[in-house]
């Protein structure tokens, strides 16, 4: 693994989208929390596979199929290694973080009923909330909500009060897609362990910003999506401890996950196959491995330092606007370069539209976090989210664009 010196401008040259100047303007892409851009090495890995190694996996007996099998298996190993996971069979490929959470909700939820509780939060993305609401509705499982602090963090101090003896699972975000707050995991895990509950973290926002060491985190399940970490759409991961996954029933059936039939009863393969019914997203798994390999060429501390510097600039810049209010922590401890804010008298969509017209790509609205917006009594927010390829010019374009937008809308 070569470690390269960190320079956002050099990195950006690996991304065709920035050379493409879509819309004829320099692109200031600050919508990374919705979807990150894709570097050339990933695009090339996808093209190479689709051009020369396309075949279904699951033990084909011709050279193309052997190559596809090998590449798919290797992708699993690469992803395990990135997460510091020793056993690649703990990596289940899904179509995205949302599919991962639903898979777990159905599999883990199959054994639960009205005497059981799951702890969730209103800070979470719909994708890590609605699956649990559905489970509550279908099986009578009770949901309890971990409170959210005024600055948009999970209030893990309250964890021991909320995570009670009936709690089976704590399913919360590792980092918020709205406030950028990174959850303090240790107290959460301690509170869960104290009552024998398991912990799922939603790492969708965490993966693009540095190293995630799953054994060190001490959680039981983890999920994320490829498209936010410079990889293709249509791929995601559910990680779980081997002994837990092996004990869960598969919620979906199909090819590639059947060991045989006992009469008309299907007998299922062990993890990960048992959870990967049907032809998996082979090319996308290979693309995800290529993206994480690419990301691992950088020093994660360099990425974090660079993103932190820009986030400080951004927060400082926003503070100079009288009408702007940050929705999320203002200090830099345990926060991602995901910055949401409101502008007095201006609707988030109007702000985003005007900045979009200047090549500054933001996202605005409820950000799939309607319960949080309701609690905060907001119609939505404007969100600027950074990745390693952003630089000072992007922050400057946002700030000057905001000045302009406020003038236009006045």
């Amino acid at each position, binding site marked *: 693994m070569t470690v390269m010196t960190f320079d956002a401008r050099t990195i950006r040259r690996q991304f065709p989208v920035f050379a493409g100047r879509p819309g004829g303007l320099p692109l200031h892409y600050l919508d990374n929390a919705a979807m990150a851009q894709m570097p050339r090495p990933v695009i090339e890995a996808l093209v190479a596979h689709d051009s020369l190694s396309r075949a279904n996996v699951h033990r084909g007996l011709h050279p193309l199929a052997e190559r596809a099998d090998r590449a798919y298996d290797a992708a699993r190993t690469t992803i395990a290694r990135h997460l510091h996971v020793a056993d690649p069979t703990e990596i289940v490929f899904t179509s995205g973080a949302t599919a991962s959470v639903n898979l777990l909700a159905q599999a883990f939820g199959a054994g639960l009923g009205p005497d059981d509780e799951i702890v969730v939060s209103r800070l979470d993305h719909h994708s890590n909330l609605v699956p649990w609401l559905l489970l509550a509705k279908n099986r009578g499982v009770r949901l309890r909500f971990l409170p959210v602090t005024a600055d948009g963090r999970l209030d893990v101090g309250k964890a021991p009060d909320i995570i009670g003896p009936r709690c089976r699972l704590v399913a919360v975000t590792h980092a918020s897609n709205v406030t950028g707050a990174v959850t303090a995991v240790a107290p959460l895990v301690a509170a869960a362990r104290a009552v024998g509950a398991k912990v799922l973290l939603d790492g969708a926002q965490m993966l693009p910003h540095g190293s995630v060491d799953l054994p060190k985190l001490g959680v039981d399940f983890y999920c994320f999506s490829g498209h936010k970490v410079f990889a293709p759409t249509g791929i995601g991961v559910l990680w779980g401890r081997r002994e837990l996954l092996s004990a869960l029933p598969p919620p979906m059936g199909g090819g590639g996950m059947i060991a045989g039939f006992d009469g008309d009863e299907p007998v299922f393969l062990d993890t990960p196959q048992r959870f990967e019914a049907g032809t998996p997203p082979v090319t996308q798994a290979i693309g995800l491995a290529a993206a994480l390999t690419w990301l691992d060429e950088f020093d994660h501390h360099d990425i974090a330092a660079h993103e932190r510097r820009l986030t400080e600039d951004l927060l400082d810049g926003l503070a100079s606007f009288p009408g702007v209010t940050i929705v999320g922590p203002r200090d830099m401890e345990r926060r991602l370069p995901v910055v949401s804010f409101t502008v007095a008298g201006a609707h988030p*969509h*109007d702000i985003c539209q005007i900045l979009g017209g*200047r090549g500054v790509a933001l996202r605005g*609205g409820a950000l799939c976090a309607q319960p949080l*917006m309701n609690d905060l009594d907001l*119609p*939505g927010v404007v969100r600027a989210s950074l990745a390693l390829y952003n630089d000072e010019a992007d922050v400057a374009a946002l700030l000057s664009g905001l000045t302009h937008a406020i003038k236009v*809308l006045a």
Partner: protein
Amino acid sequence: MSDDIYHAKIKALAQVAHGAGPLAEPQGRAVIDNPLCGDRASVSVALAEDGTIAALAHEIRGCLLCRASASALAEAAQGLAPERIAEARRALEHLLRDPETTGDTFAAQPTFTDFEAFRPVHRHKSRHDCVLLPFRATEKALAEAARQRGLGRNDPVAGAPS
């Protein structure tokens, strides 16, 4: 550039906010959400004896385009037969969809000529619903009012949710 949407006329319409607020004695009321952006339009209507629109009031949680549209609509709807609203909405949809329509889109609906101001929105498909949301709520509220009349009940609907 997206700034062309936010020209003086649109901003003035949003600013003046014709019809903003609740209606004392609505005969029909409807709340419609635009789930894709979180916007919400609540519209209340009252009909005159002859069935024309006596009053239209709205409460908008939404963007400038949505507020400008509601404002223009509240002004334009006054005294019209309820069917005119759907006709105007179709003309507006046509204007948003087809940039080549000429200036007289609203020739048949003269009170709606203010909606010419929304012409630049045609380039931003994701914003069309912002402009149309007040119409959709109004049509629903009018249907509710008609139903109430049909039931022979002419009494106000006390804040009935849709």
